[in-house]
């Protein structure tokens, strides 16, 4: 019900459709780029360094090691989107479980759980992520884990609110009277009826996670070479910004446009579902 309403809202909005198409295009091209280009993202070619865009077969030009930037941007898209999606989904999952438990049990447990969430919320997640990646290595996995365990409090609060609201409704009350257990009430009644809020939150978490990863990588604290997310590419290109601006402008444009796309889609869904 919520999903079809969200889809309908997107289809009816021209800007949202464009954003969705662009996201789809980036996603598909990042998967099938080996068919489009003969280059790979790691091989150096020192005869062809700093080629400007549209020179020969290098659509986006080449970087300081002669690597094809188009291929590197595609590879970067894979990494950025993977980290964004994975971190957003894990965050949401943690948030749903935490919020439901807190709301269903209520009382002193609820109070303690919410104060703990408050504390997590007031610690800057970026700092925690920097600390964790510094000490645990900078693989994709640690970045996903670090992002997931720091930013779940928003979803937890929303889910707790939903649970408190739904708990008092007649259909949940009657299920309780019939002897249905807490777990079943959560999975059968509370989560299905909160799908709207969950969907909105996921759509806002994905760009937030992509942003966090890009931010870290741009500072040089993210994914390590030769793998490269968009943030890493921008960080590498930044050194050459004055002479070879496309090296930094192309990856940054992708970050910016993808963020705007997610923002537009998220906003459309939010308006449709009233989240």
């Amino acid at each position: 019900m919520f999903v079809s309403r969200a889809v309908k809202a997107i289809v009816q909005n021209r800007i949202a459709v464009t954003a969705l198409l662009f996201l789809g295009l980036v996603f598909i091209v990042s998967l099938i780029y080996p068919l489009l280009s003969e280059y790979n993202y790691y091989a150096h070619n020192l005869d062809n360094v700093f080629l400007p865009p549209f020179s020969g077969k290098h659509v986006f030009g080449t970087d300081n090691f002669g690597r094809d930037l188009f291929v590197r941007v595609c590879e970067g898209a894979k990494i950025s989107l993977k980290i964004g999606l994975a971190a957003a989904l894990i965050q949401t999952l943690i948030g749903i479980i935490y919020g439901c438990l807190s709301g269903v049990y209520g009382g002193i447990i609820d109070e303690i759980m919410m104060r703990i969430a408050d504390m997590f919320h007031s610690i800057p997640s970026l700092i925690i992520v920097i600390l964790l990646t510094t000490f645990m290595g900078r693989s994709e996995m640690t970045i996903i884990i670090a992002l997931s365990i720091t930013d779940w409090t928003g979803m937890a609060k929303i889910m707790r609110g939903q649970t408190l609201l739904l708990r008092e409704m007649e259909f949940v009350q009657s299920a309780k009277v019939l002897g249905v257990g807490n777990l079943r009430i959560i999975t059968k009644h509370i989560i299905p009826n909160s799908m709207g809020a969950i969907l909105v939150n996921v759509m806002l978490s994905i760009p937030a996670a992509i942003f966090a990863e890009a931010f870290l990588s741009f500072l040089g604290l993210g994914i390590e070479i030769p793998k490269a997310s968009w943030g890493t590419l921008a960080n590498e290109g930044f050194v050459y910004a004055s002479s070879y601006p496309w090296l930094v402008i192309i990856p940054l444009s992708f970050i910016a446009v993808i963020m705007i796309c997610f923002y537009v889609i998220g906003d459309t869904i939010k308006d449709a579902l009233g989240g």
Partner: protein
Amino acid sequence: MFRFICRRLVLSLITVWMVVTFTFLLMHHMPGELFVVKKNVPPQVLENITQKYGLDRPKLEQYFIYLGNVVRGDLGISMKYTNKSVNTIISKAFPVSVDLGLRALFIALSMGIILGIIAALNKNKPLDDITLFISVIGVAVPGFVLGTLSQYLLCYKLTGFLSRVTGSSFRLFPVSGWKGFSYTLVPSAVLAFGAMAIIIRMMRSSLLDVLELNYIVNAKVKGLSSREIITKHGIKNALFPIVSVLGPLSVSILLGSFAIEKIFSIPGLGHYLVTSVQEKDYTMVIGLSLFTSLIVILVNTITDILYSIMDPRVQLK
């Protein structure tokens, strides 16, 4: 009121304790065993950190030594250089970060409120659409993207063009550094942009809400001019919600400044944090992260308390 403030302070103290303990655990129990391997640490530095962190003592005692140091305001020493401590770095870098942050906050607040008012008063007219466009860009596009692009366009291209045209060595917007007023303009404007976008949206919707309330209608009936109504009643009451986001906005400006400091080579906290991560100066990373977290917790606590004083209803939540 008093009870709320006390509870909020206790909660913050527990949070601080949690962060301190977390950093301690991180130092001692992470893979890599920071204080066990000790390779590449100069002997003099090794002696210093052994003394400072009590590494020759039992773990529990080390914990209390660390806790005691933090309570006294001593956040540790570098494990790369003999003459560097976390506190000397902070005393050098934090004023710069605060300077940059306050400039950004000032720009964000003043421009955000003014543009928000303009948008509200021109609801659904072209001016409203323009501010909507600005705020979508500001909310969706990360600050470091805007920072790099504006450095390229304003500092390299525009400034270069101007000094070529005028033939003088005058630089309108210097590319990087932190040596005077002209150096601060582009970085603080870029840093302000995201926060400004949020303030525009909030100011617009809250002013529109306020203008529909009964006492505004009453003021109209009394015969006040619309300018008087907006300045005397509308704006004053519409500013309320802005205060509630001041805390989160200051925090996002502080953290956003890390990237801006990198782009414009500004010697602030973020600059030193990034450098110490890259130099694998772990005790420095811990110290600076701890300091940043404490500042963030402090800002959050202060704004919560301020807001509860301004609007006593929030305590009931």
